[in-house]
């Protein structure tokens, strides 16, 4: 019956890694599968983290080392779940590698940690994403930040960068009605990093409200404004137009009630967080509860339970920061352990 005391963790981001580590440390077998070739998930794409300006690579290495050191965790990268069949005490799951080889396993519990993706900002014709050059979403900008940091001397930095928040969030017309929760923080982080790398570059952040509810969050945003001199403008930009090779932004300063214009060389769109393709697939395979947006939903009074023997952690449930994802990973692990323990 040891198969039935084996847990399947789907997704190798911070939530999945933490869940796998904790179940392994408690003495149960874990199969950790990851769709891409390496562990780390979205963490690997980030240049820095808020609110402590830490290097996400250090965290990935720390987690990956614990995974490697555990004899109970089997890691399978380049692997996806293609089928799942419910049995009396668990699931019979079909795994498929990129090479096309498939394998059937039996597991007693499943943790889905398949993360998020970004809303396609080209839904907003007025912002020109995908039409004009130098307009990108925040994950693309994060990659650019990495590149800048590695070639700092060779780069001629943009004179002005504008950050638009709530692109696809808090919009019941063309986007998602919900607040994506983490954009306020990572936008402040990105603007702060630009000022750190290139103090001469002017940064404007267009915001509707800035939401900094978390340990050290408010202090973080204030420090970006006060010490790094990022200018915050209250108003949602309405139009981006090319002008002499640069980008002209029109908006209203809603605190003054005045129309304003900013000429920028680069625009970063903090696109809404939506369930990833993998999240949608896993929700359908394991027939979990989902909410109206496709995020995995929880059962009443059980915040990480999505169905019979199925739990979830991280941004597949809703937008969450790195530490929050790890907390949920550990909590989902506790759910699995409690389940296994009850069946002794």
């Amino acid at each position: 019956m040891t198969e039935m005391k084996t847990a399947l963790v789907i997704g190798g981001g911070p939530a999945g890694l933490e869940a796998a580590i904790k179940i392994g440390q408690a003495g149960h077998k874990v199969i950790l599968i990851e769709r891409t070739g390496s562990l780390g998930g979205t963490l690997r794409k980030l240049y820095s983290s808020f609110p402590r300006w830490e290097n996400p690579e250090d965290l990935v290495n720390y987690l990956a080392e614990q995974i490697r050191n555990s004899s109970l965790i089997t890691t399978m990268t380049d692997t996806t779940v293609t089928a799942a069949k419910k049995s009396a005490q668990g699931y019979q799951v079909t795994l498929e590698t990129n090479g096309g080889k498939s394998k059937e396993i039996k597991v007693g519990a499943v943790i889905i940690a398949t993360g998020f993706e970004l809303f396609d900002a080209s839904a907003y014709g007025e912002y020109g994403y995908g039409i004009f050059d130098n307009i990108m979403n925040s994950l693309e900008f994060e990659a650019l930040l990495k590149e800048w940091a590695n070639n700092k001397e060779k780069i001629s930095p943009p004179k002005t960068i504008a950050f638009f928040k709530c692109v696809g969030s808090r919009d019941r017309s063309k986007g998602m009605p919900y607040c994506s929760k983490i954009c306020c923080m990572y936008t402040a982080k990105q603007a702060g990093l630009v000022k750190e790398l290139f103090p001469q570059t002017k940064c404007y952040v267009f915001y509707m409200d800035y939401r900094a509810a978390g340990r050290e969050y408010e202090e973080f945003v204030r420090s970006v404004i006060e010490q790094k001199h990022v200018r915050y403008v209250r108003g949602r930009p309405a139009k981006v137009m090319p002008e002499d090779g640069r980008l002209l932004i029109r908006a209203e300063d809603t605190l003054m009630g005045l129309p304003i214009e900013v000429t920028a060389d680069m625009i970063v769109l903090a696109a809404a967080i939506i369930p990833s393709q993998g999240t949608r697939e896993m929700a359908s395979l394991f027939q979990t509860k989902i909410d109206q947006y496709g995020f995995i939903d929880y059962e009443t009074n059980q915040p990480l339970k999505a169905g019979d023997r199925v739990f979830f952690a991280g941004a597949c449930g809703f937008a969450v920061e790195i530490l929050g994802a790890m907390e949920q990973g550990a909590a989902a692990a506790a759910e699995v352990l409690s389940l296994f323990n009850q069946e002794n």
Partner: protein
Amino acid sequence: MPELTKKPTEYYFKAVKLNQLDDSLQQEIKLKCGVDVETCMECGKCSGGCSNTHIFDITPRQMIKLIKMGREEPLLSMDSLWTCVSCQLCVDRCPSRIDIPRVMDYLREKACQQGIKPTREQVKLFNELMLGSIMKTGRVEESLLAVKFNLKTGNYFKDADLGRQMFFKGKLKAFGPRVKNLKKIRQIFNDTIQKEG
């Protein structure tokens, strides 16, 4: 911009007594226009994208805010009422899809009903002439409309050169177009007049 009739301090530093305001105007807009201004998040995307905001005295966002505050008087006498060209950019950009042009129309009607003098007489005149043309032929007879407008305003040669160029390019017809079912158009006008008085 119209000249300021009050001292700036009267505009900016006079306290609005919130507990003396009510939501009757907001309810009226909801009932008559089907527009719920409660959904406004005050992001300002309407005003930022507005094609005429540079000549507005009150921006669309401020207009919505004034409705929420129940302040009818500045709304009915504002210059924006007559400089708005109903281009619909605001409603297209609005994350809450608030139909601001519909509210503008309603406020214009209300201002006219209450006999409030438009800040731009010519706009009202143009609208009247245009609607008159539609009532008569079912379409806007552009050349005639331009001539009538120029005669009434005294700017006899306004856009004359542009009109000449358009005529030779075949963009202006000497005889205006007509719709087939003129009866139906007249019916719409009659219904509206009967309904609104």
